[in-house]
């Protein structure tokens, strides 16, 4: 007997798969970006189902709210034409249907191979602390401190790299008095 949790989980999963397909199959980059935002949003819904509000909010804040804004910004700035991209007309609906069919095939195969996969997940940790800000940050700053610091350093390196490239460009000869 499916309960509300299962109904929500499978509808979210279906939306995630469908929007992921649409990201790949829409001709215009802006449309793909919009589908990707929907994808991130519904993924946050999955985290809420798991009781992890913090991860859900961070998912929306970082991915849907920050990273995708940059994507959309760059797409708008470049003003890409589907003809230039060579994606005019996009992939056909039949390829989308084929893609969804392939995914369903994989799911059915997995179900046959490992019958436990689509059953209810094992009991989750106690909801009172699981996924709260305190619990997540404690794990992050004790158990996973090295990974956390390392990702910080990688981001810093990327930042310095961007600065370096932009600085080199800015030093290139330009019209006198033009503002950078």
């Amino acid at each position, binding site marked *: 007997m499916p309960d509300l949790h299962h109904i929500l989980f499978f509808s979210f999963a279906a939306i995630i798969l469908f929007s992921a397909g649409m990201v790949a199959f829409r001709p215009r980059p802006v449309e793909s970006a919009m589908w990707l935002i929907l994808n991130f949003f519904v993924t946050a819904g999955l985290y809420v189902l798991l009781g992890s*509000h913090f991860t859900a909010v961070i998912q929306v804040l970082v991915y849907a*709210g920050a990273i995708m804004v940059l994507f959309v910004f760059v797409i*708008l700035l470049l003003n890409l034409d589907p003809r230039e991209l060579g994606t005019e007309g996009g992939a056909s609906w039949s390829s989308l249907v084929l893609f969804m069919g392939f995914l369903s095939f994989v799911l059915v195969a997995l179900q046959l191979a490992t019958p436990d996969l689509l059953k209810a997940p094992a009991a989750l940790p106690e909801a009172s602390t699981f996924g709260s*800000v305190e619990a997540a940050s404690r794990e992050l700053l004790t158990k996973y401190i090295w990974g956390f610091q390392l990702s910080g350093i990688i981001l810093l390196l990327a930042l310095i790299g961007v600065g370096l490239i932009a600085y080199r460009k800015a030093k290139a000869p330009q019209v006198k008095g033009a503002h950078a």
Partner: protein
Amino acid sequence: MINIVLSASVLPWVFFFGKILFIFTLGFGVIAPVMIWVERRVAAFVQDRVGPNRVGPLGLLQSLADGIKLLLKEDLRPDEVRPFFFILAPALAAVPAAMAFAVVPFGPETTLGGLLAEPARLQIAPLNVGLLYVLAIGSLAVYSIALAGWASNNKFSVMGSLRASAQMISYELAMGMAVVAVILMSGSVDLYDIVKAQTNHWFIFTIPGFIAFLIFVPAMFAETNRTPFDLPEAEAELVVGFHTEYSGMKFGLFFLAEYVNMTTLSAMCVLFFFGGWEFLPFGLTWEGIGYQVDQHWFSWVIPFAWFAAKVAFFLFVFVWVRWTLPRFRYDQLMGLGWKTLVPIGIANIALVAGLITFGGGF
């Protein structure tokens, strides 16, 4: 008397839906129309005019008349727009504005004078990550503007969208930095805990709190795209930018969303720095002056009214600043965001962290 009407099992639900009804009626039905009227009257006062004064007493019903006009107007759609996104954009402006309202607390914890079994929060969704939720939902507002400009297929609108995206990304960072200082001082991302942490000690009266406030206020103006940061609209150069092609209720939704967002951010400002619904700083709390916030079922109204008054003041500041200051130049805007507010914000975080770790407090 009320116990007889509402049995104990129904009451929590009545309370729950009552909160939703109360907050959304207030936000969309009262604050937004009244603010539009206030905006026009204050603008008129600043410019030595009279302003709308014909519809209703003092022109108060002007917004109602405008609303009816917008609803009944022909739904114009230029030929060259991208239809789906053209309609999606105003909806994307209104929905996050409404969503952010769900976690704004508007009064102290109450049992409604003993009607409820345990103290309940005057907040629709008692989320323990409320502050992050507001930031996350706020960061989605940029899509409506970006899409509106792109879907309009108008070069001025696209320019407006690009400016808006760049501006909102830049000032979100500054706002985040200001908010991190508040999180460090209160030790929580729960909006209720942030207010509780200020019971005796409003954050505005601490050094890092004051610096954070100075960063938060310009970021607040920039996030709502209002003067002096209204470059996305810039009537004179971009013919109001992203919503040039919009008319009727589609424009109305953008307009409504702007005022609802202003209300949310004003409420955040009061919650972060001005003690929420607490009476006065330095220990003069409601309990301190002998007022019981949970004595009768309606006792929460006084703290709520006090909170609303504080929010109203910041809403007035929005209007006041808009009609007093000229618009920034684009490079000045970016310079202020990235070279002034963000570095000060980072230094402020270091200051709070240092004070808490080594100074034992702030």
